[in-house]
């Protein structure tokens, strides 16, 4: 992540200038999105227009830009720090800050797949929280709530008992019992006099409510940027190709819990794929599912075969990472036990 990378001084200066306000608790929540561009900054307005939304872009200094994101009649103002591979968008709005974060989140969904949001699965989110325990001076973690996302029901909020220490197994048990992935977790990190309150989410929407912005950047944003980058890389170059005259499939295999993959759940997965993509269910039952899906956004195509112990995604000659990520997110929403075989 570029918070402390060379050439990022303007962004670092911008972030550090907010430190006193956030430590004092007098600033509105700060929303941060780690994104992966498939375009140059100069094309962002054109892309937004093609997607039916709009954005005003003005270079502030170096790789730091001011953004005015518009979604119909609503607007949010943000800063964009643009590196070649990663763009970080920071929203800090004095007026209705929650809405401003939502506007950018929805705007990003519209300009997808030209600007791809990061994503984190349940394990990655919990691994991050666990990682604090491995620091030389482990900070205290106080969870206030976590949210599960069940398909097709949507989010379910779970309040954490006040004063009860963080315990990963409690959240994992809820994931298993509800058969729903972790959507977000809100917690406070306290280390001596330094502390911050934040939320990290499956869809890459990170929020700092109050506290040390520099701690938030180094303990949350920086490691999650590395995870997000690794996730993106995993889904790159998955298209079918010719190697020495033979067709080679770069399939993605997801292992699953056989107990979870029932015929009913596979039917639900088939329905979800047909809603989100242009999908044809060519076999369903016993339990096995075979769907051919076309991404209506960018024309990527893939076969999805789900067996009790495994889901296999077989991309065609075009399979963009953004498309595969959307597919992966959807699969893990319906079948939360699905895990990438790295």
């Amino acid at each position, binding site marked *: 992540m570029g918070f402390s990378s060379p050439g990022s001084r303007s962004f670092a200066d911008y972030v550090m200038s907010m430190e006193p306000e956030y430590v004092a608790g007098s600033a509105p929540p700060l929303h941060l999105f780690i994104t992966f561009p498939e375009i140059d900054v100069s094309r962002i307005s054109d892309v937004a227009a093609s997607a039916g939304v709009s954005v005003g872009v003005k270079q502030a200094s170096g790789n730091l830009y001011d953004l005015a994101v518009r979604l119909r009649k609503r607007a949010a103002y943000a800063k964009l720090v643009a590196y070649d591979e990663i763009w970080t968008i920071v929203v800090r709005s004095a007026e209705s800050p929650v809405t401003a974060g939502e506007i950018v989140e929805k705007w990003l969904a519209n300009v997808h797949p030209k600007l791809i949001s990061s994503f984190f699965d349940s394990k990655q989110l919990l691994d991050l929280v666990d990682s604090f325990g491995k620091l030389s001076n482990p900070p205290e973690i106080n969870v206030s709530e976590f949210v599960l996302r069940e398909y097709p029901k949507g989010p379910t909020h779970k309040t954490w008992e006040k004063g009860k220490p963080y315990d990963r197994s409690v959240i994992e048990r809820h994931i298993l019992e509800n058969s729903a992935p972790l959507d977000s977790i809100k917690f406070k990190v306290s280390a001596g006099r330094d502390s911050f309150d934040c939320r990290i989410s499956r869809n890459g929407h990170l929020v700092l409510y109050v506290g040390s912005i520099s701690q938030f950047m180094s303990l949350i944003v920086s490691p999650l940027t590395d995870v997000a980058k690794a996730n993106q890389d995993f889904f790159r170059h998955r298209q079918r190709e010719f190697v020495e005259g033979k067709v080679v499939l770069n399939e993605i295999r997801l292992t699953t819990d056989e107990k979870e993959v029932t015929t009913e759940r596979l039917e639900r997965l088939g329905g979800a794929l047909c809603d989100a993509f242009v999908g044809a269910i*060519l076999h369903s039952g016993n339990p096995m599912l075979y769907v051919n899906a076309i991404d209506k*956004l960018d*024309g990527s195509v893939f076969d999805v*075969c789900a067996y009790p112990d495994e889901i296999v995604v077989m991309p*065609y000659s075009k399979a963009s990472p953004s498309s595969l990520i959307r597919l992966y997110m959807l699969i893990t929403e319906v079948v939360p036990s699905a895990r990438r075989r790295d």
Partner: protein
Amino acid sequence: MSLSGPASTSTLNQRIEEEKRNVRLYADAIALYASIRLTFQHHGFAVHVEPTVKLVADQMQVKVPDLLVATKNGWTLLEHKGSLPMEKDLISGELKELAKYDQSLNFDKSIVQPDVVLLCPSRLATDLMSRKKELQLPTVVSYSPPTEKNCILTQANGTLKDGYLRDLFDTKSNEFKMSTDTVERYKYKFIRREPPVPYTTHFIWGFINLSKDAFQKKVTVSCNQLIQRINDFCPPWCAEARQLSEGRLNKVIRFLHHLGWIKFDRHTREIVADTSRGTKAGRMEEYLCERFARFSEGVPPGKEPGEEEAFRTPPLEEFFS
């Protein structure tokens, strides 16, 4: 295609169900044939899918069995039946047809005398075995659902004559678990003749979409490009049998044109597709089956949910004239 006017609702519904069933059976058969082909090939046997043969004793009558397997020992002909009628006369008739293969066949300029085997789903094999006394059954090999990771073949009645094939089966259970590469299997989409038009349409629509960029609605692609692209990435079983032929594509073009999803220039053979079509159709195979049934029965296509008609649907006589 019916030219005698729109069909009644019951006829149309029957036709829709028939189209859906055909798509399902075709996809299952592809999975079965691909599994058999890949597994047997791994053991060094050649498998010909739907080869053309001539019955030597029946005035060289041309027939197309489902699978013809060659090992060093000889030939085995597998005729696939997904279902059979219940009445004894009808079922006997079907078995009699199968018995016609039990003679010298002219195949690929050679004369072969195959072992004739009925290949059917396990539940059908169980039904047949329960009626063994009243029916003259040939050798029967049954299969578990072919879409499973490891489809199991069972010698349900009699045994295969070819020792190489017979040795694949466990001597106690009579079963052979085919360990198919599940990924390799899905390279094959059209290895049988006469794929149902809705089935082919969905795949071709996908290949048309591959040319699309994000937020782009209209895509132009030539028929030659399309055939080339599909055959490149869905490789043929053998050099002379490509998975997508011009004939198959023409049927799809005609149907997509009828739906108003494409404009087709028959002189340049270029397709201009509106890729926003079909995006709200839900289960695409069901949608296409319903529309194709309407098309075949002469019922107007109507509009899609939430969408306007993109291209004018021309009178059929304008098409391919």
